[in-house]
């Protein structure tokens, strides 16, 4: 792809180490990852490096991916569930350029999936790793702005404040009004931010076969959920956790029980709902499924300019 030269760093090939980071840095990050796996849900501080993309745009995920990436890996990068959003394209091109690894858009072909804001609809397998990009790793941050205090709260498992927030939701709205970045408790111990995925995806994290790694570059934290670990969304006994439900299937592939994006068709209220996970949608269409919108060509035409 000749897009690489423009999308990744401007420097020529061969000037940087495999997957950009030097081996010492990768070792440091892998040590942090190992610690994170050993203490599920605990935020491990690490000496995050400056990356050639801005903080807040996936530098944490990129550093984690760079540290675990091997030459035989097959990488998939998604943003909002889609392989083709600009930031996903940019990060994929970065690794194509700096690591020359194979990339894919197919969930089941990938060995490493870096994601922002979604978990693929297709269940992940034991030999896969999903790497989440995390903007604010601290689930208590908006209740308590001080790092010194939140670290103490985690250490002592003082999580009452988290439920105060949920209590307030119910008192005010009659139900919990947190829709994404919905806090979870990992392995019965640490309360963790699942990154800004919709709460629809929370149940997928529970007892997942794949290893889940979370990288927050700007905030310099790595955390992890090892395979087959209990992940429980916080709730009340009489107001149990619920995920979003869509009252219609995907308009393109007819899928049900998947997360849908709303697409505005015109300025007269016309809209349609389609799969947020584009790979899932394409796979279903290739298998002959169609939705109410019917025969849309498999590879859509380019509209972005």
């Amino acid at each position, binding site marked *: 792809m000749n897009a690489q030269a423009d999308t990744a760093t401007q420097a020529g090939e061969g000037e940087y180490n495999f997957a950009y980071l030097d081996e010492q840095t990768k070792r440091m990050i892998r040590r942090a990852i190992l610690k994170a796996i050993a203490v599920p849900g605990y935020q491990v501080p690490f000496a995050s490096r400056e990356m050639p993309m801005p903080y807040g745009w996936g530098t944490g995920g990129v550093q984690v991916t760079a540290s675990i990436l091997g030459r035989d890996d097959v990488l998939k990068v998604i943003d909002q569930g889609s392989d083709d959003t600009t930031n996903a394209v940019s990060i994929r091109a970065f690794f194509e350029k700096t690591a020359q690894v194979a990339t894919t858009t197919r969930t089941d072909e990938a060995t490493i999936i870096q994601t922002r804001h979604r978990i693929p609809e297709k269940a992940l397998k034991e030999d896969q790793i999903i790497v989440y990009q995390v903007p604010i790793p601290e689930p208590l941050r908006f209740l308590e702005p001080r790092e010194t205090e939140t670290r103490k709260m985690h250490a002592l498992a*003082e999580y009452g404040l988290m439920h105060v927030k949920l209590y307030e939701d119910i008192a005010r709205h009659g139900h919990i009004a947190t829709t994404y970045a919905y806090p979870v408790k990992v392995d019965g111990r640490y309360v963790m931010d699942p990154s800004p995925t919709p709460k629809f995806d929370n149940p997928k994290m529970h007892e997942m076969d794949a290893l889940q790694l979370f990288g927050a570059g700007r905030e310099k934290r790595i955390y992890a959920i090892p395979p087959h670990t209990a992940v429980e969304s916080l709730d009340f006994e009489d107001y149990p956790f619920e995920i979003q439900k869509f009252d219609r299937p995907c308009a393109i592939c007819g899928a049900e029980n998947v997360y849908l994006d709303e697409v505005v068709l015109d300025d007269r209220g016309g809209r349609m709902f389609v799969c947020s996970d584009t790979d899932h949608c394409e796979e279903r269409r290739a298998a002959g499924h169609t939705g109410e919108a019917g025969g849309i060509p498999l590879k859509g035409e380019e509209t972005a300019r």
Partner: protein
Amino acid sequence: MSAKPLPDEEPLLRASALTRLYGERIGCRDVTFELYPGEVLAIVGESGSGKTTLLDCLSTRLAPTAGIVEYRMRDGTMRDLFRLTEAERRLLMRTDWGFVHQHAADGLRMSVSAGANVGERLMAVGERHYGDIRGTALDWLSRVEIDESRIDDTPRAFSGGMRQRLQIARNLVTNPRLVFMDEPTGGLDVSVQARLLDLLRGLVSDLGLSVIIVTHDLAVARLLSHRMMVMRHGKVIETGLTDRVLDDPQAPYTQLLVSSILQV
């Protein structure tokens, strides 16, 4: 409460030679006393007498320069408070103790509802049933004479007296055995003060609470406390049963204090 009632002769809290210095300046010096279950102790003195410093040391909000504070835990053992782990200390503070601040805003979460303010301690110790938490909150609101319809309002919309009563409910919801109070009626109108004192007196005797209350107001001490300590320049200069101290003060300073205030 599941814990066995303690024999009366065993103190709940004991301070020994408690001293706190601020550089050269004395906060409080060499304070020794015992507090028994169900007892209300008033610490009185003018501002700067060291009574608030003493309260902060007793409640572990401030580390003393020297001396020991011991507390009888629910299992009956006497523990040095400054040797507790942080986890033990914080658990103690949110279950077995209460702290009523002079300014309700220091003791409340002003941006969350009254119900959540009362329910927070319950949630902190693992209560996970919304309906039960709300039921308990409603019960406590009525006990401190706050209309049940106000449960979803934030304390910002409350009057000073209501805020103070809410703060008391928030503290008492976990059935603490010891409550610290720092000028709980300070800054309130006289009529509001009277109502609050009445309420406090009722709750303290109904629940059999032990209380250490700091006040500069001898009328508050007279109304609430069994025993009082008079402080000046960081030292305890007189101690005894409240009625005795107020009716027959021994130290010249206490005599001055009593005569100057009670005659007004």
